[in-house]
């Protein structure tokens, strides 16, 4: 027998409901805590949502944040924040700073005059400084971007709700969406907790988490549907436990490979997309947890009508359509 890495034994009989008060309670706590955090502490919105300008500078000389700040002060740009960026991929003499300037008056992004003034002031403070990127979003666009972001998350959630309802039963679709909301809220919560910059790419990450988490949930549900037919008299709770146990090995394997790839990107991918990758990594962890501990608890709570013996609603749906077309 060749050597095999087995993260999960061949047969497991964990009772995933045994500590359900604890696990489900933990999830509820996390969701509530996240909502409270976001309400109290807010999110560190990036310029995509808030308007304003970020400038990334690079210099071979050591960074003196104070000197930069003093240089920019006479320009009357309003709120200016300067932070040094550290990353393992940087060279030894690569000193990177992010300068963030609040949105200026009017609809417009930063004007060329302001930009020239800023560049001049920075070169005055540090002769070796180079501006490697600037991003500026006017308040008009940022307002629209917020709505686009909210719409896209809502649209994705509703589309999934509908698809799961079509393929399974409505209880499953409620369970799946509850798990999704859990994942999103908890991810937004951690962004609030650590005040990580929240911008458009994070929305993309949230949608990816939606996709990943539903992926996981669907696999468990799929097995549950199969087992419900197989074990007709067994209590729902038992069937669920069997289903989760049977798919546990796969859940762990897939999360494992995905996390491996994401962690590589998190460590080595550079600081520009670190926030984005962090959101996805965290989302994969939360998403895996929620498909095991949240989605099915909701389904159990709602109960499944097992007398209908409706194996695959979608199959029925489609066959009906086909026969209609034949007539």
């Amino acid at each position, binding site marked *: 027998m060749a050597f095999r890495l087995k993260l999960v034994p061949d047969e497991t009989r964990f009772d995933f409901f045994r500590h359900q008060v604890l696990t489900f309670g933990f999830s509820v706590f996390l969701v509530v805590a996240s909502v409270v955090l976001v309400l109290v502490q807010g999110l560190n919105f990036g310029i995509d949502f808030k308007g304003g300008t970020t400038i990334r500078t690079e210099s071979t000389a050591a960074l003196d944040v104070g000197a930069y700040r003093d240089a920019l002060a006479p320009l009357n740009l309003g709120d200016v924040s300067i932070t040094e960026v550290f990353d393992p991929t940087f060279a030894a003499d690569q000193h990177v700073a992010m300068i963030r300037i609040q949105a200026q008056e009017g609809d417009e992004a930063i004007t060329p005059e302001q930009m020239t003034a800023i560049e001049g002031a920075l070169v005055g403070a540090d002769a070796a400084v180079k501006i490697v990127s600037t991003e500026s979003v*006017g308040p008009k666009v940022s307002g629209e971007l917020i709505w686009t972001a909210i719409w*896209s998350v809502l649209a994705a959630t509703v589309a999934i709700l509908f*698809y799961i309802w079509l393929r399974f039963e409505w209880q499953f679709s409620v369970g799946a969406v509850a798990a999704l909301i859990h994942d999103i809220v908890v991810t937004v919560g951690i962004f609030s907790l650590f005040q990580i910059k929240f911008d458009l790419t994070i929305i*993309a990450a949230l949608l990816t988490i939606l996709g990943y988490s539903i992926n996981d949930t669907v696999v468990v*549900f799929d097995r549950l549907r199969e087992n419900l037919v197989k074990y007709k008299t067994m209590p729902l709770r038992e069937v669920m436990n069997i289903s989760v146990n049977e798919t546990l090995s796969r859940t762990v394997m897939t999360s494992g*490979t995905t996390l491996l790839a994401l962690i590589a990107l998190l460590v080595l991918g550079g600081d520009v997309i670190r926030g984005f990758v962090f959101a996805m990594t965290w989302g994969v962890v939360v998403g895996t947890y929620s498909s095991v501990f949240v989605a099915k608890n909701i389904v159990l709570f709602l109960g499944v009508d097992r007398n209908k013996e409706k194996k695959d609603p979608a199959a029925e749906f489609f066959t009906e359509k086909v026969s209609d077309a034949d007539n």
Partner: protein
Amino acid sequence: MLQIPLWKRVLIIALCLLGVATAAPNLFYPRVEAHNDAIVAFENSGAMTTEQAAARDGWPDWLPSGLVNLGLDLRGGAHLLAEVHVGEVYSARLKSLWPEARRLLATERATIGAVRRIDSPEDELRIQIGEPSQIAKAVEIARTLASPVVTLTGVGQNDLEITGEGDVVTIRLSEAERAATDDRTMQQSLEIVRRRVDAAGTREPTIMRQGADRILIQVPGIGSAAELKALIGTTAKLTFHQVVGRAGDANSPAGVGKIILPGQDEKDGYYILDELSVVSGDELTDARPDTDQNGYPAVSFRFNPTGARAFGDFTANHIGEPFAIVLDNEVISAPTIQSHIAGGSGIITGRFTVQEATDLALLLRAGALPAGMTFLEERTIGPELGQDSIEAGKIAAIVGLGAVIVFMVLSYGLFGAFAAFALMVNIALVFGTMSMIGATLTLPGIAGIVLTIGMAVDANVLVFERIREEMKKVRGPARAIELGYEKAMSAIVDANVTTFITALILFVLGAGPVRGFAVTLIIGIITSVFTAIYVTRLLVTFWFDRTRPKTLEL
């Protein structure tokens, strides 16, 4: 049984080879890019330098040469989102109606009395008549100015809305005409922005309309967004006006139909000009940098026949009077007309530097923007930052791939190796598909590929786990394998369809880099399902046919 029909086998292998072949040029990115650039340059100019010829020969013609486009965040460049002030065009349009309206109404002077234009908001033209009792008659006459709008939605609507109240006739643009005007303004703006960017000679700019009144401009390789703004942000509206007088400040009373504009230098003060221009930049056929008789930089220009005639007539009638050359609402010079200028060409002097004269000539040649713009969003990414991101992404992808492969082989042995092979084919297919459809790779797109690496094995994991389960129940490895694939199918489909839905929504609603992410994710989902189901299955079948194992080590 494990049989796969021959045609299917051939098709699977052919698709894999096609993917690898189309992806391969990306491994030699700079060389292939130089090759493609040289060919484009040759097609455009018909000539080729020795370096270009060498670049062309650097990659054989018979090999595929499609490349993945690099997004701005990887290549470096500038991104601008501009809002066009479409409303500006309305007032210019209305003002231009005045001479015709005056002529028409004047023919009925006997009944409606004297006609004069009075102050009005920007989007209206108001005409006062001498006899309020004849307002209905005046409106009737004015209505002959209107003509039907030809659009899909505005059928039966006229372009002007003309109403009368008291002794005032008010002319407004109708709803349909506004929509049609907006559309024309946008088309024109797009065209002119494109000409200006092209004239600057940068590669593959993206210039497209977004929403009702916005233009998205992305230019790879340009130094900064400020540079791009200077190029496209100037309206470059050139007009020639009759000078009526001078004014002390901008707020002096000018009179109806007159405008006050500042001189180029503050000490020039203000000019009172006739609002209607004699000729405008639209009538130019050529403009080039030049020098005046004192050797200072200037711009020489040439009018088309219509412009030349108008300019000729005007100069013939106003010898000895000053006229103003106005650029973007600023009088850049106001020479006195010495003689009748008949040839339709002339020279603009001002206090230009050589660079300014060159830029102005370029802008005049490209044509004036029909309306001003505001820049709502701008992003500049330096080329070094993009290069750093590519390097970091590459290393991360390789490390991630290696880790996943090791993990898979350790967990599933030979089957894991099959999955690893399928994973590599999958990556080739993603790049191949992107090269073929000309999709753009962005930094989040790289993240999408890395995520695909992690998630692509999911389908295989589902199948392998299922095979393990089936092995406990059924006799014979062949049956177990077959059942494994069969029963894992519904989970694979459901799981991927839901991910696909979210990726699709990202694509539809996202913009820029985020859309790049969605593209790689969508392609990744499709190719990963293909490789995980068909490629691994083909490998398993080959292996099974050759070895006929009694048991499976999985």
